[in-house]
């Protein structure tokens, strides 16, 4: 009979109307400024640069290898390699970015820079409240704005951060082992020949 479907539909909306007063499922709004939707751990917005330690300039992991700059699809990263070198977290002397700019007005949040970075130095932030009236001043992020401590990384992506710490620790361990081996080799070369090999060499 004419009207049956309409009445069914009306019943459905009425159920939702009254349900919205009693059921969470029927009132799905997250009242944003007052409450926030918890972000998933993988959530990504814009890249930031990780630094270790307290001094952001010293602790920056980035060595200005410029791979991300080349791979960035929308070309929003701008890096100027430094002329001098500074020691990185492993104590190795490395270049560092004299200029590291990301134009957030262009960035497409694709995470490719993170994927291609061999130094675990660029990661994705979850900050999204960046709207500004100033397009040129407010959205071109310089090195200083981009640098964030490892603790921040741990806070927003705990699993990834632990993994990348492990990678770095392993590399550092390898590096130290290598350095030690090299040192010992040097020592061995310097020392008289008939000396028993050190236990770590085996």
């Amino acid at each position, binding site marked *: 009979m004419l009207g049956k*479907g309409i009445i069914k539909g009306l019943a459905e*909306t009425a159920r939702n109307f009254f349900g919205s007063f009693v059921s969470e499922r029927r009132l799905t709004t997250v009242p944003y400024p007052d409450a926030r939707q918890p972000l998933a751990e993988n959530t990504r917005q814009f890249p930031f640069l990780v630094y270790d330690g307290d001094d952001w300039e010293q602790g920056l992991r980035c060595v200005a290898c410029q791979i991300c700059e080349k791979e960035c699809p929308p070309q929003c990263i701008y890096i100027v390699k430094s002329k001098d070198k500074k020691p990185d977290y492993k104590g190795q002397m490395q270049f560092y970015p004299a200029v590291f700019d990301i134009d957030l007005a262009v960035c497409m949040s694709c995470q490719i820079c993170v994927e291609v970075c061999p130094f675990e130095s660029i990661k*994705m932030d979850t900050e999204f409240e960046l709207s500004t009236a100033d397009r040129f001043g407010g959205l071109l992020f310089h090195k200083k704005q981009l640098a964030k401590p490892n603790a921040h990384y741990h806070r927003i992506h705990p*699993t990834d951060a632990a993994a990348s710490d492990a990678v770095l620790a392993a590399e550092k361990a390898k590096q130290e082992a290598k350095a030690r081996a090299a040192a010992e080799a040097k020592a061995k070369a310097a020392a008289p020949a008939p000396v028993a090999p050190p236990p770590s060499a085996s």
Partner: protein
Amino acid sequence: MSIAAATNGKRHRLVPPPSPADGALGELLEISMGPQHPSTHGVFRMNLVLDGERVVKLKPVFGYLHRNHEKIAESMSYLGSMPYTDRLDYFCSLTNNWAYALAVEKLAGLQVPERAEYIRVITAELTRLQNHACLGGFLLQDMGASGTPLMYAFREREKILDLFEALTGARMMCNYMRFGGCRCDLPPGWREQAQRLVAEFPAFLDEFEALLNENEILMARTQGVGVLPASLAVNASISGPMLRASGVNYDIRKVDRYGIYDRFDFQVPLGEHGDVYDRYMVRILEMRESLKILRAALADLPEGPIMDPKARLRGFRPKPGEAYGRIEAPKGELGFYLISEGGPHPYRYRVRPPSFINLTILEDMCLGQLVADVVIILGSVDIVLGEVDR
């Protein structure tokens, strides 16, 4: 039909256009719908010639969102184009990812591990769910239902987007698939969350159907409107749910059996009238079939690697040659045609956009209908301008 008659330079038409010089009728009113119009789904434009409210002529105008995807991709590394495919059909980034990955895998001869194939199927079917749900909402919105179906659809879509975000890190622009696998593995608890969603989704479908399917206004508005016969649909390269709504059994998941679709037991719903109602209903029924696939895939998901060990992230240079890979995207046959000259960039990169080609017969379906029908016919075609104009 003889060859000579078929090749006289005329298109095959559903209805001959009424002669505009019919003095007895009212004066014809030329009106352009779009590029800014509530129901052109973006910046599409239709130049309408109306006789009263009856459509005498309709010329689609494209290009208001032509953002040169193909040209940019030809100067971009293969990987660099992946996030751009997200922005083709911005409702279904994961199926776009898959189609592109599939084409590149064909071009470079990469194998996808089993687990990655399962994840691809799961994400693709979730994408199909949210696309079809939202299409239903938008179609009803075009029909003038003040937002309620759309809100319900988006309520469910948000849940699926939560899954996407947990998996890929982004709600819409997932950039998830890689040549030879997927970017990252499922986060802990994801599978259970997805299973919960799949278990709850039929309740939403029931609600949606109770709200609308039997609604007399909806049936009166959609049945017999925008009829597309099967033979014309095939000839005009229509694909996807629209083709199946015309009664043609052609689902690339069944035909090409790409990925691991031959492992799943699902059916292909077919319409028989080829009108707006069939297109709408076929999509609703497809959602139920997708749920079947999802249930099976989530239950059977094997352990294992998610990337082909041969695949490389940087310095990817396929051998010269070409490949055309296509999948059954929610909107139809999404194909990628790639020509490699051996360099880091594709020499030619072409997207076969389903919703663009599905618009070919828009005029034929709309002629003789009312203005109000035009918007729902367009709505039932299910276009996304990012894909139409690329």
